[in-house]
């Protein structure tokens, strides 16, 4: 039960964080970091057990009738991801605690950040598709709050909205996909679905389920053509970017694809879609990063590229590819977390993120520089960092890919060249190069700001140096979770002289070459991009949103015209026509009118009602018309009393009295009673009135003869006293048997009353 308990604790801490921040003062980040760190240690301690092939499962009932439970499923892949989320989360908390000090509402910020982490942690341990979906949506919501944290800035709000709309759209698709996926299994439980992969593949629901799940994963993981929200999301404060890009949010899509690989994977459709989308994204992201000058934006585009690589590898699905995917996941999380935190540090110390206005920082912050350069080395894929292993495996996988390996290899090679180039460029341009005039002399960042980057780089370094001893135990069971039939490859730093090594060397040399001639190449690429990629996806997206809003406004204007008489007319006509059809179909209409046993006094009442009804129509005074309506109401009341419907009669008397008073108070505010309607309109109204009136008459007369279902009144008569201890059946139904309906009704009338109250008060003010 530890997994569930831990999530509840995390949720509790997130909820409390905004309120306790001011008591914790400056140690807040360190104290919040305790929670993810505890979790990190817990999942680390599970590792030996998981590596023996155990899977930990827990379940708490939620909606058992629908097969929806809070289930948790912790296997090797979940543990690896948990370690990433919680390990990086620990450092992010420390970092954010210090980083956010000058900003307002830091308590709330920390709460959002913790919630974000909880949501991601929830996704990776979910054992029920619906549970996973709930956490999935929670990451969208919390990332919306985080990206839009600087809510005074319009571009932050726009980016947050864009991210929410795109991932929210994907989320809906995903829900549909999950529902379809679960149909052949009649279960949402992941453990059951994973152990019977063939059920869905043999079902004709495979195609729609796959498309919907893929849309969910691609939007979340910023795959082409949904990639544009991710660079926009870097308007968030740096701790958010560091977390969002390294271990959470965007990795959720990759996690989902990998998680469902045994079920949905292995088909032609799967491998072609993922390969093409992944490869396109990989190259597009890298290509677009070349011409950027904002440090965080460069990093954001390389994340897009890395996500594409991961999707491509999962789609390829061979032993090398899956191994490469897991290692690269680790590599990327470690270096990207570091780089974003360092980008934040540089911005804090120099006041800018524009790489053209940075330079010569090495002598001001040598320690931070070394940390960042090592992360860049890992990104470039140079030994001894773990990044080298990742890149080697990707090349191995590309060379050995069963399909289209030339296509994959070319794009992979170009992407890596760009990454090498970027690493060189960021290293040289930021830390050496021409030094601009800084507003204040940059200094070494505080301990809290570099401890995270330092440990992440250290991890990358150690894992790279001792791959078989350190990296293998961490990743081997994750690999078997994704593809049960595959084994983990024993990782080695040195593979001997082979094609892959040659490719690596060639990549490095090409990167160097691009770097050397960057002053010629970058402007050329810039010109090319401006010429051929003029239309930005972001602008296109917002144009789409605008068009949609215009459409909905038009639709609302047509349907919600604001004329009360037409609303009523629509309501009356549709209701009466539908009932007419029902009556027509049900039974032959038998109109048995029998006035013989009607007492004379009631005949008088009925005549009175008819007279009042006519008077209400023909009267030229509004007051007379209202009083006539009142007479009709009281006449009906008398009929109720005569047929012993005392309850109804009392209610009716009250309602009729109050209605007449109410109408009288309104009369003062109305203009003079005039006749505006044309003859045509009056004829139409008469027609509608006849339709409604006649349907009521027929309905009442038929009600006695046609039997639709066994009447429920017998049950109420029986149960009223025995079960609910009341002899007044009407009241017992209202307050006991149908209490929930009544609650809904009084809520509705209260809201309506509030609306009337607000409208009247508003018009008084004007």
């Amino acid at each position: 039960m530890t997994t569930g308990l831990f999530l509840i604790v995390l949720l509790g801490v997130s909820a409390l964080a905004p309120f306790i921040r001011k008591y914790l003062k400056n140690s807040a980040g360190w104290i919040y970091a305790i929670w993810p760190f505890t979790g990190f240690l817990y999942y680390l301690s599970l590792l030996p057990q998981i590596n023996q092939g155990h899977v930990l499962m827990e379940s708490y009932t939620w909606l058992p009738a629908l097969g929806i439970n809070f289930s948790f499923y912790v296997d090797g892949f979940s543990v690896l991801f948990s370690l990433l989320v919680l390990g990086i989360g620990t450092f992010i908390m420390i970092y954010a605690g210090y980083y956010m000090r000058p900003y307002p509402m830091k308590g709330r910020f920390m709460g959002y950040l913790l919630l974000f982490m909880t949501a991601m942690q929830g996704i990776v341990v979910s054992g029920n598709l619906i549970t996973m979906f709930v956490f999935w949506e929670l990451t969208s919501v919390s990332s919306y709050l985080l990206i839009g944290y600087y809510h005074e800035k319009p571009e932050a709000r726009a980016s947050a909205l864009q991210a929410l709309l795109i991932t929210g759209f994907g989320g809906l698709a995903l829900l549909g996909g999950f529902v379809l996926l679960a149909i052949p299994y009649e279960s949402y439980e992941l453990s059951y679905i994973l152990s019977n992969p063939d059920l869905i593949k043999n079902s004709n629901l495979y195609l729609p389920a796959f498309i919907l799940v893929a849309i969910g994963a691609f939007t979340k993981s910023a795959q082409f053509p949904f990639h544009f929200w991710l660079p926009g999301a870097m308007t968030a404060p740096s701790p958010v970017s560091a977390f969002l890009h390294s271990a959470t949010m965007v990795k959720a899509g990759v996690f989902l694809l990998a998680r469902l690989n045994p079920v949905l994977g292995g088909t032609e459709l799967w491998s072609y879609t993922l390969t093409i989308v992944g490869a396109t994204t990989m190259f597009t992201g890298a290509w677009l990063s070349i011409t950027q000058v904002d440090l965080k934006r460069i990093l954001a585009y390389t994340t897009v590229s890395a996500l594409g690589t991961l999707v491509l590898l999962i789609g390829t699905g061979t032993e090398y590819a899956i191994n490469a995917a897991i290692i690269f996941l680790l590599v990327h999380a470690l270096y990207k977390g570091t780089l974003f935190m360092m980008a934040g540090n540089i911005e804090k110390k120099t006041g800018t993120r524009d790489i053209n206005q940075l330079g010569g920082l090495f002598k001001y912050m040598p320690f931070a520089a070394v940390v960042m350069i090592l992360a860049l080395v890992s990104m470039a894929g140079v030994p001894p960092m773990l990044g080298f292993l990742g890149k080697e495996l990707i090349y191995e996988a590309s060379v050995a890919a069963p399909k289209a390996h030339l296509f994959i290899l070319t794009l992979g090679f170009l992407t890596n060249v760009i990454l090498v180039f970027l690493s060189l460029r960021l290293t040289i341009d930021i830390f050496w190069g021409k030094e601009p005039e800084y507003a204040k002399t940059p200094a070494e960042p505080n301990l809290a700001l570099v401890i995270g980057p330092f440990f992440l780089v250290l991890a990358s370094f150690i894992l790279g140096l001792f791959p078989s001893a350190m990296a293998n135990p961490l990743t081997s069971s994750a690999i078997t979770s994704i593809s049960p039939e595959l084994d983990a490859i024993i990782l080695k730093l040195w593979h001997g002289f082979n094609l892959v090594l040659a490719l690596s060397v060639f990549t490095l040399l090409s990167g160097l070459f691009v770097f050397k001639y960057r002053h010629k190449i970058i402007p050329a690429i810039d010109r090319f991009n401006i010429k051929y990629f003029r239309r930005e996806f972001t602008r296109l997206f917002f144009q789409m949103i605008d068009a949609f809003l215009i459409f909905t406004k038009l639709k609302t204007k047509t349907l919600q015209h604001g004329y009360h008489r037409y609303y009523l007319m629509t309501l009356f006509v549709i209701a009466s026509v539908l009932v007419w059809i029902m009556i027509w179909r049900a039974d032959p209409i038998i109109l048995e009118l029998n006035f013989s046993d009607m007492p004379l006094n009631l005949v008088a009442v009925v005549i009175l009602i008819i007279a009042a009804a006519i008077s209400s129509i023909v009267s030229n005074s509004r007051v007379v018309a209202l009083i006539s309506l009142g007479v009709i109401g009281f006449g009906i009341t008398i009929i109720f009393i005569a047929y012993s419907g005392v309850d109804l009669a009392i209610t009716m008397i009250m309602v009729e009295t109050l209605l007449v008073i109410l109408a009288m108070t309104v009369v003062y505010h109305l203009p003079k009673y005039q006749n505006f309607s044309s003859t045509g309109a009056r004829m139409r109204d008469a027609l509608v009135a006849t339709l409604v009136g006649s349907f009521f008459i027929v309905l009442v007369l038929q009600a006695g003869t046609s039997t639709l279902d066994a009447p429920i009144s017998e049950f109420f008569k029986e149960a009223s006293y025995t079960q609910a201890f009341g002899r007044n059946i009407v009241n017992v139904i209202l307050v006991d048997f149908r209490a929930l309906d009544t609650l809904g009704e009084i809520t509705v009338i209260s809201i309506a009353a509030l609306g009337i109250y607000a409208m009247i008060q508003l018009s008084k003010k004007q």
Partner: protein
Amino acid sequence: MESIILQIAARHMRPLLLVLSLIVLYRGHNEPGGGFIGGLMFGAAYILYAMAFGVKKTQKTLFFNPINLTALGLLVALASGIPAIFAGDLFMTGEWYTFFEHTAFELKLGTPLLFDVGVYFAVAGMLMMVMFSLMEE
């Protein structure tokens, strides 16, 4: 509109109507009556008063705001569903408790009565809320 007859009638009718509304509310379970009718009577008592003396004067004699009364009613109605959860039943199941037992007399009260009280308050509150703002000049 100042009418002495109406004012004197309203002054004496108001407490009577209020007591009557309570009686109607209480007896509703076994005989004609209930929260809805009771609430309408409760509201009518004050509306009659307002017709005779004006809305401002009536509001001064009120120790509550009609909006709050409506909210209280909704809360009470909602709260009446909660004891069932603790008793292990579904939300809003009627629960009955015997408060006073004697050979000749026993007082049995249940959550449906509480629910009816909620309806009573909500209906009275919303009626007053709307009528007062309409009658106010």
